[in-house]
């Protein structure tokens, strides 16, 4: 919340969806080269409504529906960027980004490098990630590690409306390709992992207070979601809220770091905390093996080896596809995160 300044305009209550919509709106207003598109992103406003109203306001040329081709979406976005536009492309679910992965990895990420700066590809590719909506193995994935392994990409993931808007504005203004992951389970409220409880809406949460105007949350800067002394929890997206819940139910005085940008990583925020607490838990929804948690673990032990009092603990999705019926047994909920914290404390 620290980045708000006067010029960002009056504060409104927004869900994360509204905040994302607002970021589009602000940027399309400021910069005629910003365009938004994707499957059902035009008149319909996207299956999650993140682009609702944009076509009406900015016309069909600047917000439009695409054929169902993620390759085409990313590929034409790159082409538009090469021609001076700032495309913001929506992939309907991250699970469907694979047909566009080649254009992301082989083209967008390497355009600057391979042309020695002669061409660049400042695109934003937005996609909802994560489980918790009974989406089974094709509407629940968290593929962030498939992006963080790719040199040339920026990978971001907000956990609340305020950040979502400020981060998306930073992404749109960035001159590098940005993968913008949206944890769909917290689109409407800060889901803390207890799926039986009624959802708290963002309107009841201070992070749902979002300036209506232009402001940025910087790329590459983590946030401290909770200050604490006993253990450092590194997490992002939906799991920030689950970790808060775990701290509550265990009473552990955890320092919970919301990474926000995964690449480039805010290593300093991480090491400062871990050196102080001496303990570290990494939490994400993605499958464990070769998940982004592995990289976090590797860096923490490289940087903080002599401060660590116990093994770094990873709490992550099991190494299986995301099941449907077993969703809540599978989801790394507050109890599993709590167990991870306690394990790190024992060590």
């Amino acid at each position, binding site marked *: 919340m620290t980045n708000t300044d006067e010029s960002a305009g009056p504060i409104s209550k927004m869900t994360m969806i509204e905040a994302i919509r607002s970021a589009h709106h602000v940027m399309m207003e400021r910069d005629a080269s910003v365009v938004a598109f994707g499957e059902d992103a035009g008149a319909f406003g996207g299956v999650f409504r993140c682009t609702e109203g944009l076509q009406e306001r900015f016309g069909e040329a600047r917000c439009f529906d695409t054929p169902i081709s993620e390759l085409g979406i990313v590929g034409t976005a790159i082409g538009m960027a090469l021609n001076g536009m700032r495309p913001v492309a929506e992939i309907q679910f991250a699970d469907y980004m694979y047909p566009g992965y080649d254009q992301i990895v082989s083209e967008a990420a390497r355009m600057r490098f391979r042309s020695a700066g002669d061409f660049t590809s400042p695109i934003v590719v937005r996609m909802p990630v994560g489980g918790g909506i009974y989406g089974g193995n094709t509407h629940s994935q968290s593929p962030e590690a498939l992006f963080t392994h790719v040199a040339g990409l920026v990978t971001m993931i907000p956990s609340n409306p305020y950040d979502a808007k400020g981060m998306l504005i930073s992404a749109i203004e960035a001159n590098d390709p940005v993968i913008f992951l949206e944890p769909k389970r917290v689109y409407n409220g800060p889901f803390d992992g207890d799926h039986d409880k009624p959802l708290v809406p963002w309107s009841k949460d201070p992070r749902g207070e979002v300036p209506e105007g232009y402001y940025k949350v910087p790329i590459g800067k983590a946030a401290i979601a909770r200050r604490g002394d006993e253990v450092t929890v590194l997490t992002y997206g939906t799991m920030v809220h689950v970790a808060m819940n775990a701290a509550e139910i265990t009473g552990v005085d955890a320092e919970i770091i919301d990474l926000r940008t995964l690449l480039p990583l805010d290593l300093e925020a991480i090491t400062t905390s871990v050196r102080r607490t001496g303990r570290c838990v990494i939490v994400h929804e993605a499958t464990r*093996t070769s998940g982004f948690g592995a990289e976090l673990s590797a860096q923490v032990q490289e940087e903080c080896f002599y401060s660590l009092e116990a093994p770094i603990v990873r709490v992550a999705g099991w190494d299986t596809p995301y099941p449907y019926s077993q969703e809540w047994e599978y989801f790394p909920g507050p109890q599993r995160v709590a167990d991870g914290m306690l394990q790190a404390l024992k060590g």
Partner: protein
Amino acid sequence: MTVADLQSAGEARRPAIDVLAPEIMDMAFGLIRVLDDEGNPHGPWIGDLGVDELVEILTTMFTTRAFDARMMKAQRQGKTSFSMGSRGEEAIGAVTATVMGAHDMCFPTYRQASYLLGRGRDPLAMMNQVYGNAADENLGTQISGLYTSSEFGFLSISGNLATQMPQAVGWAMAAKIKGDPTVALAFVGDGSTAESDMHAALTFASTYTPPVIVAIVNNQYAISTDEEVARGSAQTFAQRGIGYGLPSLRVDGNDVLAVHGATSWARDRALAGHGPTVIEFVTYRGSAHSSSDDPTRYRPEDEFDEFPLGDPIKRLRLYLQNRGFSNDQANALDEQIRNMIEAKNEEAEAIGTINTGERPSLRHTFELVYETMPPHLIRQRQEAGI
């Protein structure tokens, strides 16, 4: 919505099965129709379906419609998280299911419940899958409606659009390599033709000419977008096939006889070694895209009533009346099927729904990843306490 170049019933010619693609390019722009608006059949595609076979097809269509309606209701009642119907499109699956042989293979999308039912799958098994309950043969791995049935020659449905298309071509290539007298039937939606997989499928089909039928179900919509968004400047989807030098037909998908004629022709062709056929079935998505969709946001509510190719069930009933199967008989059959579906649904609900009864164990989640559970999964399963 355009149903371009409507041909009238009986107008389209029926070429020999060894016809070469260039000789029938025009057929990708026409429309094979047999039944006219009065339920009278016309022309060379009439075929010789008997009343019994037609009633069997009607049975499948009734079953599908009742099943879909019941599952949508269950979703509204919160008993499943998701539902996808095929109202208005039932003829395509119901008919092709009767054309394909015992060892043929279907590569479906999520809108071919009528194919699976037409092959003989018990609706109860499908309901158990929809509810993800303890009797779900899918063991809870997939969202509602993504059935699998090797027994009935029906590939596990993927949530990723169009991925089944190159697989169907590969399956048919294997049939050709082995010399098996079998045919692959692959379904894809109009919107999904834009996916990369479609191009790979058609390219490999064009190069290796295996026994495969590529069936594009043009139901006028993707989710919120009109079929035009994928079709672009082309007049039809069948036209895509021309680009690859494949014989391509455009067929009234709500006309049971036309669907039967065209699919039989394509299958005979494939079995005789003449290679792939592309068929665009023109139909209408009478239901919402899924239970998550609100079609009033993008189309008039009465559009289906205005659809020039009508409702396939109504049209078959009319034709059957002309063949001596009365309206009363049809109504009785329909009612009997609704009751059957209601009874099966009670049975399924009694086993369990998304929030009642037991669910398939998380154990399956670990067991189904590899043939043998590797050490890391054994360990994770133990950590999960099962």
